[in-house]
């Protein structure tokens, strides 16, 4: 099977890009990557180590313009005879994959969490993670976007060739006015460890202890919805059904009740630790480890314990 994997990489190859290539490798076939973004050829060539046979790159395409990216991928799909096109389910894919589906009349499965089963059906999360479903595609060409952090990238091959490719994109109709990226923060969707807190923390002035723990762990910080709504924390930290959905390896929740809408965005976490004064808090039902206690005492103790652990060799 000819598989095309689209990668949007500005500055560095995101882990999600490696996941997408390794996912295609696991499905099996001839894998061509089509890439946009500023990453240099040598770095793009390392995608060969994850299974790519060749990388086609068009740096003139603006990833903000879904029409340009769609034209590029459609052209690459035609030139490689792609039967399957794989994306990582990120902001660009959410704009481009549906367009491509219409353009190529190719069924789209978004948010895949596994490779297709023996019947070609693909598992996805539905009802905000409260259930899963298996989707089949009726068209000959198929498109899958892979949920980040649901597939482990594995290295096996060696570097591959990188070729310039003219996507025939034309001028962009989307103008980027400004990009604001705060320095030094770990972006939440990419974070493997997340420390989160809710209304139980009583006020924004108490977030220091959340940040202290996040710092010693090298974790990102998150919060429940009311906390973002009252303005204690920035909106981009709000996780849950109506906020960011995350799938970190470790999610530590302090002073969060564990309402169903909160769980919906975090129940994909591999391990959940809950700290709450109320032993009946619903979050304990979804937790792997629970601490019934006051976050104001437990968080600093946990920070100290992590510090101690980090300073002793293992």
């Amino acid at each position, binding site marked *: 099977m000819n598989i095309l994997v689209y990668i949007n990489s500005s500055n560095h190859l995101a882990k999600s890009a490696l996941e997408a290539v390794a996912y295609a490798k696991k499905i099996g076939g001839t894998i061509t990557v089509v890439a946009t973004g500023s990453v240099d050829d040598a770095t793009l060539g390392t995608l060969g180590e994850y299974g790519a046979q060749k990388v086609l790159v068009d740096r003139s395409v603006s990833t*903000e313009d*879904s*029409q340009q990216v*769609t034209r590029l991928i459609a052209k690459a799909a035609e030139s490689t005879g792609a039967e399957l096109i794989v994306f990582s*389910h*990120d*902001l660009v894919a959410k*704009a481009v994959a*549906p*367009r*491509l*589906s*219409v353009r190529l009349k190719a069924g*789209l*499965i*978004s*948010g895949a969490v596994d490779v297709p089963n023996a019947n070609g*059906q693909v598992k996805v*999360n*539905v*009802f905000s993670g*409260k*259930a899963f*479903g*298996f*989707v*089949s*595609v*009726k068209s000959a060409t198929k498109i899958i976007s892979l949920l980040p952090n649901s597939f482990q990238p594995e290295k096996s091959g060696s570097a591959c060739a990188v070729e310039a490719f003219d996507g025939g994109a034309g001028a962009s*109709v*989307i*103008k980027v*006015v400004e*990009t604001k*990226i705060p320095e030094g923060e770990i*972006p939440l969707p*990419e974070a493997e460890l997340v420390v989160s807190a809710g209304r139980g923390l009583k006020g924004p002035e108490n977030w220091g202890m959340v940040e202290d723990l996040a710092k010693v762990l090298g974790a990102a910080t998150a919060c429940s919805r009311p906390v973002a709504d009252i303005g204690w924390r920035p*909106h*981009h930290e709000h996780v849950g*059904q109506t*906020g960011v959905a995350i799938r970190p*390896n*470790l999610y530590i929740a302090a002073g969060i009740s564990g309402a169903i*809408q909160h769980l919906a965005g975090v*129940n994909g976490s591999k*391990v959940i630790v809950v700290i709450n004064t109320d032993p009946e808090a619903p979050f304990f*039902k979804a*937790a*792997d*480890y*629970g*601490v019934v206690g006051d976050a104001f*005492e*437990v968080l600093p*103790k946990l920070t*100290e*314990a*992590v510090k*101690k652990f980090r300073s002793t060799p*293992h």
Partner: protein
Amino acid sequence: MKILVCISKSPDTTSKIAFTDGNKQFDENGVQYIVNPYDEWYALVRGLELKETLGGNLTIITVGNVADEAIIRKALAIGADDAVRIDADPKDAYYTATQIAEYAKSNGFDLILTGKETINYNGSQVAGMIAEALDLPFVSLATKLEINGTTARMEQEIVGGIQVVEANLPLVVSCAKGMAEQRIPNMRGIMAARTKPLTVVAPAAVEELTAYVEYGLPAAKSAVKMIDPNNMDELVALLHNEAKVI
């Protein structure tokens, strides 16, 4: 300004999720349907705010059957001027988007808004599909939207930050949190909604491209392990040795 807001129904956020018919059908027993929160709170309300400042008309559209008229009336009560129901079961995103695009094609909208995804299928597909079918620019998951003349300025959350982009109308935008604040319909709105126009349109012939074959529920979690609040060393050890996450 002619604004079209796409709304879909979704189970109330507290609904218990279950399946019937050998896990092939969603169990609707006891499920209360609401307007998908992203459609209602962000797309619809931002659309209304824009209409209120710039003038014009806001139409809502849904692909669905007679039972879905309840969510249409809710959206009308919040302030939409009129509504369109395409009389069909929304079989998959492609089917739904194509129906909406067919209607939009012959009605010339300046702005088409959707929520970023539905909370039942979480696909993030319909808006981009409409944009492609109409050959329009599309901005996904916008958290802010301002219109100045024929130019739209939007913010999007990108990995680790925010990006500000501009595009010309006509345009398709999917809306995420930040766009607007939820509005509760008042008595006057609810009364007015009863008499606002609702057009029912026959569906176009469209083949769907995907199908849900089966559903399931995640395996039950094993019981939580409780740790003494005075023994955080034990928690750290478990996270390292047992869970292997630090």
